[in-house]
């Protein structure tokens, strides 16, 4: 059961991911990106991290992507034109892609040998209580620094968006 759901949503994530790049219209790309995030949320849920899954949907799909879509719609961006691409790119691209995937899979297999295998739902630190206590004990400093960074970003946005009254 878990494996079937995992396969469905992993495939969905990959297909949506490819669509983000291939679609010519920015709105379709943004929607495909939302699809990727929703599929990832389901995978987090399968792995036993319900809080992370809900926050993934809430923050990424629900807040950040709404802003993306908002901006795209406000600018009324049209479809982009597709060129057929240089023959050099195709010639070099395919072997390079194969090489990249080989290296990636090699590194992953070296880092996580068979014996470490992931089990569905075995990850117990994904509940709200565990995430909360980790944030306020082990990772207190990074957490506070991140919030400061966000504050600085907000101040920057205010400064940039501030119109001088004359």
């Amino acid at each position: 059961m878990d494996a079937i759901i995992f396969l469905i949503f992993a495939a969905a994530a990959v297909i949506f991911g490819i669509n983000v790049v291939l679609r010519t219209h920015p709105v379709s790309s943004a929607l495909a990106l939302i699809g990727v995030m929703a599929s990832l949320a389901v995978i987090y849920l399968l792995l036993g991290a319900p809080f992370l899954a809900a926050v993934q949907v809430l923050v990424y799909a629900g807040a950040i992507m709404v802003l993306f879509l908002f901006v795209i719609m406000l600018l009324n961006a049209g479809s982009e034109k597709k060129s057929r691409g240089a023959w050099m790119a195709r010639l070099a691209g395919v072997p390079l892609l194969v090489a990249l995937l080989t290296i990636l899979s090699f590194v992953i297999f070296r880092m996580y040998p068979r014996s470490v295998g992931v089990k569905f739902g075995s990850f117990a630190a994904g509940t709200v209580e565990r995430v909360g206590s980790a944030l306020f004990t082990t990772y207190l400093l990074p957490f506070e620094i991140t919030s400061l960074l966000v504050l600085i970003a907000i101040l920057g946005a205010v400064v940039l968006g501030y119109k001088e009254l004359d």
Partner: protein
Amino acid sequence: MNFFLLSAIKMAMVMGVLMLTLLYLQWAERKVVAHIQVRLGPYRVGPHGLLQPIADTLKLLLKEDLTPPGVNKGLYVFAPFLAITLSLISIVVIPFGPAIEVAGVQTWMQLTDLNVGVVFVLAISSLAVYGIVLAGWASNSKYPLLGSLRSAAQMISYELPLGLTIAAPLLMANTLSLREIVLSQSHYYWGWIPAWNVLHGPLPQVIAFVVFMIAAFAETNRIPFDLPEAETELVAGFHTEYSSMKFAGFFMAEYANMFTVCSMATVLFLGGWLPPWPAEKGSVFFPSVMFAAAGLIALRHGLYRARPRDRRSFQVIAMVSFGLAALFLIPAFAQFFSPLFWFGLKTGLLLFTFIWVRGTLPRFRYDQLMRFAWSFLFPVAAVNLMATALLVAIFG
């Protein structure tokens, strides 16, 4: 019993009741608004217009399903589907009542209890904006686009006070599971005053409740915050180009969102299915008394000479009320249905407030709407949250 079978039965029951509620919510809205405006409202189709919702559904089903030229076809069809799906999903985590035992099977009156129930509802409601935004964009028309842009800005802005006010009762309940939030409100002060979060120490969440309800009006695009579909400015806003069942989808999504938001308010602030005073002090008899009183009023009006057309129908209503009053006197029945009664009564009163406000308040201007959210609601909610956190840390 088999988990899947049990879930399927519960789901079918909740779905059936929910659909019926949504249908008649629309009838109730038309009736209440009509009476506020000194009209009668629907009266022709069935007694007191009771068959009107069914007639309306049939009408929408049979109407021609237009697809205007120039729309982005896929998204145009997808948007109402998305809107209605997202508005119905949140219902799975709402607890309607305590654990019950039917024919030896013990189960909760709730479809599923998530460890992160509150965040789940927030996540789903934050996605709800897509239905409206995509509808407006895919219609390829000016008014829907304006409506959906307004809606996106409005829903993002009002989500902040909404989230902050939800966080305050969570600090007191110390859990994110909706069921446990209700259970944490289940004791009484001095045997009488319920420890609902609106009355519960260390800081009664009255302010949070009011801010939550105001933000909920904006989140569900209801008057006085229905700028996305302001008919005097934008024809019909984001659903201008929709007809037939697709329009019905948006219509239903709005009512389903209202229902979800009201049940969330009930669970978070008003103690969910818990009675307002202890059962041993007579709250078990309240449903019977209420239905009996309703029956007496209906009977009196039914016998009243000047209302010939209500003469028969009001007597039937009176008989049904007396029947319900009698049923609630049977312990086995009451034990099962009084939690549902209290949940329904609280949610119903909140829904009535939604309709009442619609009949009373005019629409905000767009700049007023934004200023209200950012310079009033947000600071109030933030101060309330900080005060709650401080008091919980000191006394909790």
